[in-house]
């Protein structure tokens, strides 16, 4: 599996897609920064605390978009280029291939998105009349959710790529599923707690809201983690059976 990770990492850093998405993430940070600064200038009475106030829907959606596109690109490209045949034909075990690729994509897409998030967090802490205080525990809470959620989302995309083996279809499904889930969550319940646990987009609130209890936070993390493991397992089952 170590070899799979090393090969996939190599491919990722040699591919334009990685740098384009990284640029988008960084540009959005700059864009956010400008937006926050101008907002503060026009409303001096506004207070910005921690990460919460600077995090908005745009960056939440962007995180999903970046991870989804990236995972879809990487996983499906191995099928569309038929490289998967060569990889397996060289003696790589299928389980090692799936796990190794999953880990690589999770790590790389976290690199892409977390830069923007850490920047947003620090910005929320330090910019704004000096009212913010750096909350290390909050940042760790936030990062853990990003990692666990990122893993689950990548595993989901990997499964879709495994089934469809098509880039555009994988991308579409992986990008629109969170939105659909959000609609479903909103429509089946108005209870904040259930909403938070079932809906991938507003789940960010779990990490970022000071109001969320530690218990709810942990439940969310565990659910995302287990879902990630389950999706990975499904990928392995599907991937093992199929002829390439």
């Amino acid at each position, binding site marked *: 599996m*170590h*070899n*799979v990770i*090393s*090969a996939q990492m*190599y*491919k990722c850093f*040699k*591919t*334009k*897609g990685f740098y384009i998405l990284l640029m988008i993430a960084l540009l959005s940070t700059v864009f956010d920064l400008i937006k926050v600064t101008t907002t503060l200038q026009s409303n001096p009475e506004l207070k910005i605390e921690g990460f919460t106030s600077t995090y908005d829907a745009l960056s939440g959606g962007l995180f999903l978009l970046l991870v989804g596109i990236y995972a879809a690109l990487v996983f499906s*490209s191995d099928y569309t*280029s*038929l*490289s*998967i*045949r*060569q*990889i*397996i*034909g*060289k*003696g*790589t*075990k299928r389980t090692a291939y799936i796990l190794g690729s999953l880990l690589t994509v999770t790590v790389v897409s976290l690199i892409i998105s977390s830069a923007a998030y850490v920047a947003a967090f620090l910005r929320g802490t330090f910019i704004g009349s000096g009212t913010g205080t750096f909350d290390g525990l909050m940042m760790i809470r936030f990062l853990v959710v990003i990692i666990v959620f990122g893993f689950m989302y990548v595993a989901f995309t990997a499964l879709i790529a495994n089934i469809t083996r098509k880039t555009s279809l994988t991308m579409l499904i992986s990008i629109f599923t969170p939105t659909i889930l959000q609609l479903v969550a909103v429509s089946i319940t108005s209870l904040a707690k259930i909403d938070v646990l079932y809906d991938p987009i507003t789940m960010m609130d779990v990490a970022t809201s000071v109001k969320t209890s530690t218990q709810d936070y942990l439940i969310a993390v565990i659910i995302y983690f287990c879902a990630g493991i389950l999706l990975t397992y499904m990928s392995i089952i599907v991937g093992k059976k199929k*002829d*390439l």
Partner: protein
Amino acid sequence: MASVLRTDSLTKVYGKNTVVDHVSMNIEQGDIYGLIGRNGAGKTTLMKMIGGVAAPTSGAYEFFGEKDNTKTLSRIGCLIESPSLYPELTVWENMMFYNKLLGITDKKNIDEILDYVGISEAKKKKTKQLSLGMKQRLGIGIALIGYPDMLILDEPINGLDPTGIVDIRNLLLKLNKEKGVTLLISSHILGELARLATRFGVIDRGVLADEITYEELLEKTRKAVRIEGLDPRKVAVTLEEMKLNDYKVIDGGKVMVYCDTGLSGKINRALGEKGMYAESIGTVGQDLETYFVEKMGGGVQNA
């Protein structure tokens, strides 16, 4: 000779179609095994199974006498249907990807192989910019990473122009001669395969219809004039006079003269002038195409 690949009743069923039907074949070290069959005969499917990317419905195969393919796949190089390349990566980087996958830390082999397959000038090019022939060479190059003992190549000359075909043929012959690589090559271009292979397997609707060595093929497709019912020694004298030195006496008295079959009339007249009248004089030897087309289940195949 040691067996490199042995398949035992290898079968693949897709839905209701038996695509590969109880194929048992044996490939020995140093062989260049040519797999011939029409479109849809099951060549690719057979290669996918032994290449470890499709599971057999039933039957088994072994490489180097070992049934567990996880132990042997690293000794096999495959190029099935078309080269698997990452279009964004350069030629060199595509090779490097597989080096990393196999845990090869010394990068020396990359330039060595690129040189060997003749695309080292293009090593900095992205593979999406390569011509078909260059892609095919890179595909073979990737298959060669790890220096396998056997190469499985599915239609390696598909889509190449005549010079490309000659180049790839020479490359494959070189690999076989210099590196002792055993080759399994599929094609439906008969003439090409005949120039390369030492053994042939004909596959017809999933069934291995015939297996034949190059020598046997030559024998079967060798053009000859057959003379029956005369004293072979006397016939020989006449043939020598006509400077036809390549002849053989078979089956107690029949004379086979290996020459242009158009000469049969001339031979007949020469014998007649000496008062020898053959019981029968005829020509034998199918051409290559007729021979294979018959084995492939009839019908003309255009490549």
